[in-house]
């Protein structure tokens, strides 16, 4: 009876319009609130920055001022094959990181002269660089030129990968 009264009454049209407007506002406000909830619920993803920082730290440890650290290559001979002197601490999180450093003699860029790898080796198979893909570990890579103490020339390639899904990706 009430419905009949509203719909049969031409003057009731205005009230229906107002109710319609309020319903619209509720829908828009609900949508905005939902978006805020999604934004607030997603963690900040800093893996790419972490991978870049790790890469830069390794690069500074291996070569400084254009000269390769003598702990790695001395007089054209490979020395250390680990990063123990680089002040890195992956305690309890060994599975979350991966790094690979490849040294190439500039005269033979097809075959590596020396390689250092560490962390979770499975991460090398799948990672993303400079693209948005939440479900893949994030990576960073760079290559640069350096000399050893005997002026032998090398190209050094560094790849770092960070997983840390739990703290950086929405579950």
């Amino acid at each position, binding site marked *: 009876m009430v419905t009949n009264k509203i719909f049969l009454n031409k*003057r009731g049209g*205005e*009230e229906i319009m*107002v109710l319609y*407007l*309020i319903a619209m*506002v*509720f829908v828009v*406000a609900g949508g*905005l*609130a939902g978006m*805020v*909830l999604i934004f*607030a619920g997603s*963690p*900040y993803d*800093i893996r790419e*920055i*972490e991978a870049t*920082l*790790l890469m830069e*730290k390794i690069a500074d440890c291996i070569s400084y001022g254009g000269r390769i650290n003598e702990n790695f290559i001395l007089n054209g001979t490979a020395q250390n094959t680990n990063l123990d002197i680089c*002040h*890195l*601490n*992956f*305690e*309890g*999180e060994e599975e979350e*990181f991966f790094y690979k450093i490849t040294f190439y003699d500039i005269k033979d860029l097809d075959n590596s002269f020396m390689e250092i790898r560490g962390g979770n080796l499975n991460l090398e198979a799948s990672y993303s660089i400079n693209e948005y893909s939440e479900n893949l570990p994030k990576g960073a890579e760079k290559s640069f030129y350096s000399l050893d103490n005997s002026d032998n020339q090398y190209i050094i390639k560094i790849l770092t990968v960070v997983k840390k899904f739990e*703290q950086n990706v929405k579950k």
Partner: protein
Amino acid sequence: MFKERFLKNKKGEEHLLWNVLSILLILIILSGLLLFVHIKINGAVILEQSYSKNIALLIDASTPVMDMKLNMDKAFDLAEKNKIPRDEIVQIENNIVTVRLSQKGGYSYSFFNDVDVSAYADIYPNKNYIIKINGYK
């Protein structure tokens, strides 16, 4: 003449009342939404995460010996509101940074730089935290 006509017109009065009510309701809904957004964005959970990740990245990027002063206005205000002492907002143990702004837990994030770090609040009333990189371990 128009005023008289309008005030004497019952339909006009009703119309005006409906419009005023609907505008008021819309304003209430929108201000509720703004309050909700403010609470969500400045909430302890988001700030704890943001500050702990920031500090972990700062430590990763640092080399000894270095002092870093981090402005944490929002964190100090929220911690004060939640009765967390100034010196307990940031805690660093081994290679883990923990930021606590409410009575519930806090947020922890690890760093890979193997350095000896200490963190302490700046002199009152400054709302900064000082992160001191003492040396390599």
